[in-house]
């Protein structure tokens, strides 16, 4: 048992040794895997941040809209009651609250100062609406209000929401595109590096074939090497990327408009997928390249 293990180790050592330590293509593969993993971590972080942004902007901005009722003093109460009734029966409206005087005062304070004689003023009534789920149909509500509550003005924020959500989706798309681009580049570089290594070792491969080595035996030495390099380079790069990201000072958040570039909770596990993916890519591309080169020798 121990003997066969020992034999296996000796065989492993022998096998890895049949390919010369290919200095530069090795370093090339390591470097490019690491660099690409590093960039991939950032692209991933960007995608995730954009995703969070899209969600948050979508959520927050759609949450509240306001309905203002400006009408002659004697009608205001009646129209407000009517508006509240309408809102209660509108699908997609979660709550509809009439703001009390204190709230209105707070709203106006920055402009008019604290000593506002609020009771002397012909203030409009303001109703704050919170939306549920997908929100309500703004156009339909407006039409209905025009008929039933002539003094009502709906301020529904969709004109704010749409472009922001669009922007975030835009960012997310770019993040994903970068990830795909990076993946392609990694695959390309590793394929070419493997090919370069195989081409540089053409005489080695020819010699091995001539002394009776099987294809599998020769291919394995190259495939193992490139897979390990991809894995290791990817790991180092990902780690470096994650460390860089964790050292980024958190973005000050202004009204929830921006979100820090980084990972949240379990997302920190995602970057570790990158070296695995690179290793898989390296395995497949090297395997194909090795078989192709081998077939050119009898």
């Amino acid at each position, binding site marked *: 048992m121990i003997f066969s293990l020992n034999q296996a180790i000796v*065989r492993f050592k*022998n096998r890895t*040794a*049949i390919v*010369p*330590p290919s200095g530069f293509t090795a370093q090339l593969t390591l470097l490019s895997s690491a660099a690409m993993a590093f960039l991939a971590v950032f692209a991933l972080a960007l995608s995730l941040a954009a995703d969070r942004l899209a969600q948050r902007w979508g959520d927050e901005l759609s949450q509240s809209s306001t309905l203002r009722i400006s009408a002659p003093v004697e009608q205001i109460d009646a129209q407000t009651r009517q508006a509240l009734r309408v809102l209660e029966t509108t699908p997609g409206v979660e709550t509809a609250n009439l703001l009390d005087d204190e709230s209105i005062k707070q709203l106006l304070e920055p402009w008019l100062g604290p000593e506002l004689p609020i009771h002397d003023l012909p203030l409009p009534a303001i109703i704050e609406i919170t939306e549920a789920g997908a929100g309500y149909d703004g156009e339909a509500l407006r039409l209905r209000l025009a008929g039933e509550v002539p003094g009502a003005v709906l301020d529904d924020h969709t004109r704010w929401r749409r472009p922001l959500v669009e922007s975030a989706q835009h960012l997310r798309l770019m993040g994903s595109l970068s990830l795909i681009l990076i993946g392609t580049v990694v695959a390309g570089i590793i394929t070419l590096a493997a090919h370069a290594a195989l081409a540089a070792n053409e*005489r*080695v491969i*020819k*010699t*091995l*074939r*001539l*002394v*009776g*080595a*099987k*294809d*599998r*035996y020769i291919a394995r030495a190259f495939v193992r090497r490139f897979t390990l390099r991809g894995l290791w380079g990817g790991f180092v790069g990902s780690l470096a990327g994650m460390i860089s990201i964790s050292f980024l000072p958190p973005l000050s958040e202004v009204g929830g408009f921006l979100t820090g570039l980084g990972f949240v909770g379990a997302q920190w596990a995602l970057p570790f997928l990158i070296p695995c993916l690179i290793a898989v890519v390296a395995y497949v591309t090297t395997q194909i390249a090795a078989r192709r080169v*081998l077939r050119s020798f*009898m």
Partner: protein
Amino acid sequence: MIEFHNVSYGYGGKLLLGELNLSLLPGSFHFLTGPSGAGKTTFLKLCYKEINPASGHVTILGKDARFLSRDDIALLRQKIGVIHQDSQFLDHLNVLENVALPLTVAGRPRSDDDIMELLQWVGLGEQAYALPQELSGGERQRVALARALITSPDIILADEPTGNVDWEMSTKLLHLLVELNKMGKTVVIATHDMHLIRKAKASVQTRVMRIANQRLQLAGSDL
């Protein structure tokens, strides 16, 4: 061991060897001569299937070479010892490892003592841990010989194995090959050195094949 059935071969459409009908019997000792560029190396390549005949077919160790898979070829080569004209080694491995290479790739156990003994025989005991590129031309040829013999193959194909060594060493190497032949191995030596052939004839029954005008002629004992 190796049979040629009406084989012909040529590079780029130009016929080089034609109408080869021949069988190398077990335990036979052959010399292969002919002017430079006649096709000696090409003939040997046909014997270990580095190239395929343009027409006809070759039977190697009882198997029709046309129907061998790539892995079969690998296994076959483990049973044939070839000394190539331009001896190629793995430059990052020392002489000892290079000589052991056929065993390593076949996954067969190796005995470093045996290898050292063989290296001593070809006069390279001191160079066992040198790298191939640190060897002289003649030393490389001898390493190639040692590598071809380490698996104790049934067939030994030697392409110009003494082109770069002195006469004394040539006869020593010849002696080694003759001894192996007496143990039952089939030996084919391609060479230009007529003196070597004459020397061999003194101690073993050899057949001399001569390539000329795209044909292989058996020169018999007419030297």
